[in-house]
C-alpha cells in the first residue's frame, strides 16, 4: 500500500499506509493524526483540512480545482504549496508523499 508521511506543526511525524483511492484527509482522520480537522467530511466545503505539500510532490498531486483554489485563497496561512487534503486522492504514484500541517485549521 502507498505510504504517506504527515508532519505536524511541531515536527511530529506520522507515517501511514493509505489505500489508493482514499483521500489524504481520510488517512489522517482514520489514523487519529492531529492537525487535520475535516469539518465537512471531505466535501471541499470548509477548508479545515489544509496541508502544505512537500515541494518534491507538488507536481504529482496535480493542481487544485476552482472551488478548492477559492477556498484556499482565504486560508490565513495559505502558501503556494497549499492544498486541501480531502482533494488529494491516494494513488501508487503518490507512494512516499509528504505533507505538513499548518499551526491551526481555524
Amino acid at each position: 500500500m502507498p505510504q504517506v508521511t504527515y508532519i505536524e506543526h511541531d515536527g511530529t511525524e506520522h507515517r501511514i499506509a493509505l489505500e489508493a483511492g482514499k483521500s489524504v484527509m481520510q488517512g489522517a482522520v482514520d489514523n487519529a493524526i492531529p492537525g487535520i480537522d475535516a469539518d465537512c467530511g471531505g466535501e471541499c466545503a470548509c477548508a479545515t483540512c489544509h496541508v502544505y505539500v512537500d515541494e518534491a510532490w507538488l507536481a504529482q498531486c496535480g493542481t487544485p480545482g476552482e472551488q478548492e483554489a477559492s477556498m484556499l485563497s482565504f486560508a490565513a496561512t495559505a502558501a503556494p504549496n497549499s492544498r486541501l487534503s480531502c482533494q488529494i486522492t491516494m494513488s501508487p504514484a503518490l507512494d512516499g508523499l509528504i505533507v505538513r500541517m499548518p499551526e491551526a485549521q481555524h
Partner: protein
Amino acid sequence: MSQDGPGRNQAGQDQAGIVIAGAGHAGGSVVAFLRQYGWKGRITLVGEEPLLPYQRPPLSKAWLKREATADNLALRPARFYEQQRIETRLGTRVTAIDRAAREVHLADGGTLPYDRLVLATGASPRRLGLPGAEMSGVLALRSAADADALAAVLEPGRRLAIIGGGYIGLEVAASARALGAEAVVIEREARVLARVAGTDLSAMIEARHRAEGVEVLLDAAVEGIEGEAGAAQAVRLRDGRRIACDAVLVGIGAMPNEALAVECGLEAGGGITVDLAARTSDPLIYAIGDCTRRPLPLYGREARLESVPNAIEQAKQAAADICGRPPPVPEVPWFWSDQYDLRLQIAGLAFDPAEAVLRGSPEDGSFAVFHLAADHRVLAVEAVNAPADFMAGRILVAKARQVAPGLLHDSAVPLKELAI
C-alpha cells in the same frame, strides 16, 4: 477538570471513565478528540443504532443516489475504535441517568458507571400529527435505515410527495430527480427554506427546483394522508386538493432528544442547556450536538443548531474541558447543502437583519447574499457556487466587520482585502 484528574495520566481500566450516550456525529467526534487531547482512561460509546458513527449529510445526497458506499459513510473505520481503545456498545440505548450513583442504565439491562457523562443523543424527526401519518409509505429521514427505505421508493416513474420545503426535503427532491423519480414539495409557508434562508436564496432555489421538474406547492396546508389498506397514496391539502403519490417524505424539522436530561433534572427546554464548554447544569455531565441549546457569543443569544460543524465544535469544547485544555476559539456557525450542481454554503445567522446585499448574479448560478445589521455589521452570508464569497463572509462575520453595502455588492471589489 485539572491536568491530573481521573484518566488523565493513568491507563487504568478499573475506573469508570467517560461514557458517551449517542454514537452519531457528535459522539463519534468527541471520542476522537478525547484521545487526541490526551485522555488515557476508559471511554465507552453507547449508541442506539446498530452502526458505528457515520455521517448523515450524504443520506439525502450521495447515499440516496447510491453514489456512496457504507465505507464512505462511516466517520472512521472499525479498527480506529480498537486502536484507540474505545469500547462501543451499539444497538442499545441509555434509558436513564442516575446522577447520585453516577451511572447510566441501558436498555439491555446493564448499567455503566461514569466519571464524566457526555450526552450526544441528537434529534428526531418531528412527526406529522395528522390523520394517516401512521400509514406505510410515510417516511422520515434521519438514519441510514431511513435512507434505505426512502431509496427503495425512488425509482423512475414513482412519485414522492415531500412535506416540508426545508434543506432535507429539497435535497431529497433533487436526489429524486437525479434518480428519475417525480417529486412534489408541499410547503406551508409562502416560500421554501422560509425558516433558514433569506428571500433571495429561497426564490433562486425554488426556481431551480421548478426548472428541474419538481412541483413546488407553497402556502399549502396538509390535512392528512390518504391511502388504501394502510398504505399511503396521496396527500390531502386543506383546500381540498389531493396530491397523488407512491410515498410521502415528512421533512418538517427535528426535535432535540432531551428526555434523558429532563428526566434526571438537568436544565433543558428546546435543547439541553449548555455553556461554551458544553457543560450542562451538572458539572459531571456534558451535552453536544443537535440535542443542545447553546450560547452564540457572536450574537449574544442562545439557539439550537443542527449541523455537522456545530457537532464538531461542541465535541471539541467538551473534550477540551474534560482534558483540562483551554476552550477552543468560538466559531462562526456554518452549514452547507448540495442540490443539483448547486453548492450552498452559509455562514453566520441572520438575526434581525436590516439589509440584504446581493453580490454576483443568480441568473448565472453563482452569487452570494450578505445580511447586514443596521450598523452594517455583517451577520451572515449565503453563497451559492461562490466559495470565495463564503470564505470572505465567514471571516467578516467572525470579525464582526462593518462593511458598506456598496462595496459588498460590487463584484469588482475583491472581498479578500475587506476580510483579511
